[in-house]
């Protein structure tokens, strides 16, 4: 297959993933033949401090977690821009600094709005 680009460095990563999964799966699989297996009802019930579990474990959870996730997306996208920006910073100079901080200032408006609205406040 000539002309096919093979990123040689990534071969090691691919092999690493394969070997890592192999290590995990094989230790668990071999262990199957050695470890004991005596399941009974009480052992297989979800742990709830010794009491029989009451109602659904997958309950409704606080809306705070959603707010954190939304804020995370905003700043994570920013971080992706910042990485590439940091790498070519030397070539761009003052212009890049001003421009990036105008961009960050725009995001910070949202950040402080979230702060004032109590999105970062875990308990009222």
């Amino acid at each position, binding site marked *: 297959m000539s002309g096919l680009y093979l990123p040689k*460095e*990534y*071969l*090691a*990563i691919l*092999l*690493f*993933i394969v*070997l*890592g*999964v192999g*290590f*995990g*799966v094989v*230790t*668990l699989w071999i*262990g199957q033949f*050695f*470890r*004991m*297996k*005596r*399941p009974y*009802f009480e052992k*297989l*019930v*979800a*742990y*709830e401090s010794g009491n029989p579990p009451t109602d659904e*474990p*997958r*309950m409704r*959870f606080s809306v*705070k*977690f959603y707010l*954190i*996730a939304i*804020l*995370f997306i905003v*700043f*994570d996208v920013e*971080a992706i821009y910042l*990485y590439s920006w*940091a*790498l*070519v*910073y*030397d070539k761009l*100079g*003052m212009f*890049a*600094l001003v421009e*990036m*901080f105008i961009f*960050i200032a725009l995001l910070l408006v949202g950040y402080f709005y979230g*702060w004032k609205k109590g999105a*970062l*406040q*875990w*308990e009222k």
Partner: protein
Amino acid sequence: MQILTIVLQIAILLAIVLLHVAYATYFERKIIGHMQVRLGPMMVGYHGLLQPIADGIKSFFKEDIVPEQADRPLFLFAPVICLVTMLTSLAVIPFAKGWVLADINIGLLFIFAMSSLASYGVILAGWASNSKYTFLGGLRSMAQVISYELPLGLSLVGVMMLSGSLNLTTIVDSQGSSFSSMYLFPQLIGFFVFFVAMLAETNRVPFDLPEAETELVSGYITEYSGMRYALFFMAEYIGMMVMSSIGTICFLGGWNGPFEVPFFPPFWFILKVYGFLFLFIWIRATLPRYRYDQLMALGWKLLLPLALLNIFLTGLFKILVH
């Protein structure tokens, strides 16, 4: 042929790292023991030296309990996801000049990607166990990890600006070999933010809320037992080692030391990583756990602005120097 060489190298690296994981647990128990005026493990072997091996054998033969109402495939595979993502990060870490399995030009980005993927293992474990404690533990862990990923990523932007590269070997080389040229000094704020975020990312004390045993039993690993539990444990310790390596590479000058050690170039690198690991353990023995709202406030209200300030100062500094 080339593939065989790489496989052999990976196997050797895996063996060394897993041995380190085993003895990291031993030293953790020993150091904490001595800090609390106890002896720590003493029974198995001379001063308990064979204790980690005994622990490994024990967890291998322990019964593997899968709760009845658990989501079986996800439950079975979650520990493997955690372990593999942590292990794969090791592929891009240069232990010495040329001692790296995959010298890719986006090394730092690759490590961020892998540490983000590891949180999938955590959240899947919490979800699939179908128990209240694991569910809450997984949820907390995810919120914590994404909150601290931002300061962690942003704290290293300063390093990227100084070195102009994401390749870990280039980052070390650009620091030069003298003590005063380490990025620790120009990036002092960055290092502080990185260090705190590193503790939170690896779920270590004082930020070990996902597995806060006083309130959540054992967090997302409550329902796990035997070897599957051991895989989570390994993943946690390998995560600590990866983060220590990143700290060493980005701030402490990697494998450069006061003098060259003959025959064993990674000597200084390994010494610095041990230093970081000791700090992890020391902090665990010293500090109490944070409350959850304090943890979130610290990440969002202090570390994030500090990291942005650090980027701004680094940019300004570079322009003024030019």
